[in-house]
């Protein structure tokens, strides 16, 4: 989805102001993090759907309400969408209907093991990768109405395959309930001068991870 979350290359937000080692601004932010992770562990949705839910917030909200309020709003929306709570319950904080069936409840004693295990997204696929390291590729002119991890600033640009990561779950499918649909994932090198023009040229580069459906052979 072409949205304000896709910020690469914008220059309208002012300078970066480094802060001290501040991970949370307030106690409730920690609670939002923990609640999001714990509800995530119920297995009702996946990380790609979570990201899609955050990106789908109204753009004025996305840019102004703050990071953990984005998480909170997206979590509330997902809970309602998946029928774990209804709007009235959300408003009142009271459980008014029987709970939905969930796959798993995260126990304190399992937290460390679950976090350590993580959720690897590499998969075996029968196909061979279409591209090899060193191949010239062009990013396709792809505009989806749903979740994608193809940033706008590389669309239609040419790059070189730097590394093949293996086949990974394809977020464009995974975020919208169409399964894992694993695709070959490549790290692609783009020259900064090609992305940003000669006036801004440096001899640096930008590397972006791109799934095979984002790429075509350079004509």
């Amino acid at each position, binding site marked *: 989805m072409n949205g304000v979350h896709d910020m690469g290359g914008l220059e309208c937000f002012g300078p970066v102001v480094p802060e001290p080692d501040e991970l949370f601004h307030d106690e409730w932010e920690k609670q939002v993090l923990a609640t999001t992770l714990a509800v995530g562990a119920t297995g009702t949705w996946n990380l790609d759907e979570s990201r899609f839910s955050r990106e789908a917030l109204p753009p004025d909200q996305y840019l102004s309400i703050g990071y953990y309020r984005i998480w*909170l709003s997206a979590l509330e929306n997902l809970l309602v969408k998946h029928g774990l709570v209804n709007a009235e319950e959300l408003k009142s904080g009271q459980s008014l209907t029987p709970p939905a069936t969930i796959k798993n409840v995260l126990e304190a004693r399992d937290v460390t093991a679950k976090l350590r295990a993580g959720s690897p997204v590499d998969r075996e696929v029968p196909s061979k990768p279409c591209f090899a390291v060193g191949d010239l590729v062009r990013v396709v002119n792809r505009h989806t109405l749903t979740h994608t991890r193809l940033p706008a600033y590389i669309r239609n640009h040419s790059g070189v395959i730097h590394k093949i990561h293996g086949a990974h779950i394809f977020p464009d499918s995974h975020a919208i309930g169409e399964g894992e649909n694993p695709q070959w994932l490549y790290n692609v090198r783009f020259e900064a001068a090609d992305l940003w023009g000669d006036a801004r040229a440096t001899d640096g580069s930008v590397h972006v991870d791109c799934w095979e459906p984002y790429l075509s052979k350079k004509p």
Partner: protein
Amino acid sequence: MADKPTDLHSDHDHHRAHGHHDHDDDHSHLDPTALRVRSLQSLLIDKGYIKQEALNELIDTYENKVGPRNGAAVVARAWADPSYHQWLLEDATAAIASLDFSGRQGEHMVIVENTPEIHNIVVCTLCSCYPWPVLGLPPAWYKSAPYRSRVVIDPVGVLSEFGVTLNKEKKVIVWDSTAEVRYLVLPERPVNSEHLNEQQLASLVTRNSMIGTGLALPIEELPA
């Protein structure tokens, strides 16, 4: 936003002092978002979807157990041990797991090495992807619009905002974490640090040096 460029994270109704009045019987002192979060948690606990003890454990993990000292240990080992260094470049996920750091948001690790010719810097332009097992949770600026938007187009300008000026000949490589691969920068080893042990080396490795918005500290800054 001019006076507070990290405003993606600031809030209208956030009053830091109220964190100290954080009692169940003291809701009148909580800001509206804190009340909203508490109400949601109690609903989800009532429903049986989440447990308070698990929430506490999650917070304790990311506040107290997992953080950039993990990454510093990886870097120091790579500086001190050539075979580990080689392993880290070839299979970062396994090499890092051998030091007991692994898991969520670090399932697929890649190390990018700074050299006299190359400086690497990591960003997630689309959200806030960050290697949690080795660096902990990302700092606010990493998740902010100014950082996410500008690093790819003006990395030298962003670096100057962190007080980092690179030699003009140095090539800057930006890594945009668009997939579930997480990047950790292996900073250049401080000059004249050959005599230091691994623990001393680790104390020179800052969080920002592993994101690429900083450099490792010079040996003069070795803690006493």
